[in-house]
């Protein structure tokens, strides 16, 4: 019942929005929908903690701790984004950057986008999961091409072409998994053969040849969506061209869906392939992403592309943690997913405020944010420290855990490379952002009032980030550990 409600709500809202023309109503519908989804997601997490798994709509939907966590994260990000979007688009419209028609398009596409994302963790079948990820790509393409400029069209084209190649590889991998499953089940249970709930029970009996091909294709495919190097090239373009609320959903929502899919498949492939092969692949891609992101962060000139490279770095960290394996690795990956999704929205919100106030995202042209927009400046400094993993913020814990996992797995060199990458990124970020925030403003810039809608979304997420640094509520921690057990394959 609960999962079905979560899923149908955004879909229904999206369809209703198609018929609504008034901007106020569209804003209200979006806010109400995502507020309700967030509340339902909390209820769902509670139900999962009591009963371990919740099914819905026959056997179509299936929720365990891992999916409940991902649903919660998507709902949280969607709610924050909806609050921020109200202020953001009102200002864009006042400035003449967008037409009312474009604003309507945003409010109509976003619920559908969120629906596709929610389908990924909620569905039992790995095939439907694929449909959800592909659906989220399609729903977001037009959001990336939102401003209709040359650069945004270029970004959207790159996004859909690179994404489609990846996603067809993932489909191929899913089909191969299905083949392996049918071999085990025989012809009897055809319709169940792609369902995680049945598949995970027989993971050890799957054909290793098929699973090796399947896992490689799936990692390449969903890795493209997560933005792992070398398939990451769409990410800086898309993140710098889409309107900020859509970028936030991409950076803190879609990435979780893709990593979630990789987690499921690696848990399926590990029992029959052994962890060696999978671990090497995952660590290779993860480490590659971190190391590729680092130099680009150092020389970056564009604030939003800077954040995109940070997102590539974090996707790499999560995948590498998965590759190190063991209890620590799985826990590190899940924790990092949680902390990343909570922290990233604030970073993009701040960047959006800076862009709207200064009319540019080029780091060279912006200075003195702290004096002109004191709230944004302060929060930006805080969130940069948080995303680069400075204690006391929560990312430090998960990154530390990932390092421990690497050392426990005996991958000393990988650990050293990770540390080097993360430290380089920290240095790059600090250099860029301290100049941005703390420099003296140009004489003609005066202090400006902040928009209450945008500020409330930012303060809300800042409070959550600060709180998570010191205190992980017990139910949440139980959810995380149970999710890590599912990822690590020890129920």
């Amino acid at each position, binding site marked *: 019942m609960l999962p079905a409600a979560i899923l149908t709500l955004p879909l229904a809202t999206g369809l209703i929005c198609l018929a609504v023309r008034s901007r106020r109503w569209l804003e209200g519908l979006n806010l109400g929908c995502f507020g309700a989804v967030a509340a339902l997601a909390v209820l769902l997490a509670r139900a999962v903690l009591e009963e371990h798994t919740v099914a819905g709509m026959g056997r*179509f939907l299936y929720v365990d701790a891992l999916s409940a966590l991902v649903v919660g994260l998507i709902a949280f990000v969607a709610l924050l984004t909806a609050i921020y979007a109200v202020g953001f688009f009102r200002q864009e419209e006042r400035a003449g950057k967008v037409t009312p028609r474009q604003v309507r398009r945003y409010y109509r596409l976003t619920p559908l986008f969120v629906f596709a994302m929610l389908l990924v963790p909620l569905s039992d079948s790995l095939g439907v999961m*694929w449909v959800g990820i*592909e659906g989220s790509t399609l729903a977001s393409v037009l959001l990336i091409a939102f401003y*209709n400029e040359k650069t945004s069209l270029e970004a959207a084209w790159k996004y*859909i072409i690179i994404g489609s190649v990846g996603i*067809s590889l993932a489909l191929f991998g899913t089909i191969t998994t*299905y083949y392996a499953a049918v071999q085990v089940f025989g012809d009897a249970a055809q319709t169940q053969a792609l369902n995680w709930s049945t598949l995970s029970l027989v993971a050890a009996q799957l054909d290793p040849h098929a699973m090796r091909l399947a896992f490689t294709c799936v990692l390449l495919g969903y890795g493209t969506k997560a933005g792992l190097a070398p398939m990451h090239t769409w990410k800086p*373009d898309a993140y710098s061209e889409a309107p900020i609320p859509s970028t936030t959903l991409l950076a803190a929502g879609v990435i979780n869906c893709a990593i979630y899919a990789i987690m499921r498949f690696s848990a399926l492939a590990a029992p029959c392939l052994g962890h060696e092969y999978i671990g090497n692949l995952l660590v290779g891609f993860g480490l590659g992403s971190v190391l590729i992101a680092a130099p*680009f962060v150092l020389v970056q000139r564009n604030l939003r592309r800077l954040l995109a490279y940070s997102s590539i770095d974090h996707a790499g960290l999560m995948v590498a943690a998965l590759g190190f394996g063991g209890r620590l690795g799985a826990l590190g990956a899940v924790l990092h997913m949680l902390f990343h999704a909570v922290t990233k929205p604030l970073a993009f919100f701040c960047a959006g405020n800076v862009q709207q106030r200064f009319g540019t995202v080029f780091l060279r042209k912006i200075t003195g944010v702290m004096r002109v927009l004191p709230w944004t400046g302060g929060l930006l400094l805080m969130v940069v420290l948080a995303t680069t993993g400075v204690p006391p913020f929560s990312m430090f814990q998960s990154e530390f855990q990932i390092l421990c996992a690497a050392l426990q797995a005996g991958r000393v060199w990988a650990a050293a490379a990770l540390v080097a990458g993360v430290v380089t990124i920290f240095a790059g970020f600090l250099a860029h952002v301290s100049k941005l925030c703390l420099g003296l403003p140009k004489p003609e810039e005066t202090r400006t009032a902040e928009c209450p809608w945008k500020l409330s979304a930012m303060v809300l997420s800042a409070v959550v980030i600060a709180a998570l640094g010191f205190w992980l509520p017990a139910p949440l921690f139980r959810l995380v550990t149970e999710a890590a057990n599912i990822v690590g394959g020890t129920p």
Partner: protein
Amino acid sequence: MLVIQFLMVGQRMLPAGIRLFAVQSFLLAGIAAVTAYSHHVPEVYLVAGLTLAGKVIVLPWFMLRLVRQVGIDQEHRPWLNAPSAMLLCGGLALLSYVVARPFATAEAAGAHTFGVSIALMLSGFFLMINRRRAITQVLALLCAENGVVLAAISLTVRGMPVVVELGVFFDLFIGIVVLSILVYRIRETFSSIDVDQLNRLKG
């Protein structure tokens, strides 16, 4: 089955690639129908029907209309010329057979189908890199997707569960519509659909 593969490679030199894609999809629908008939699985008829309706009739019609609307000229300027592209595709096909060898025992629709499907996929990706026109890239993507569907039919007699099949098809369809909108807008903004002009975003 190998006929399709050769059609794919032959398409490289033909401006009427869309019609060839329709023929290829028609063959795919035929294979699906034959599989359904010989193994008595009604669900696969659905796959055949969807392929026939969507990929043989609707999509090619839609794309031909799009081509007329944007007034594309016939010229293709690939990175590699036709003979070397052919050679490369031959190599890719060989690679596919090597990958497919462990699967050779359990297949339903002939021993080579899985190899052919991987070859289709790889050469579709290659076609995408090799061409510069936005529409040709879409076409190449569709060819690669045909390979994936063929793999689904060849690996498992029954194809995927119906829900998944429908979802995949729906996604594909929306995808093409979205891509067409993009092609149209790129044409309007750049007054060309040459992908090489999409080169502003770097670093």
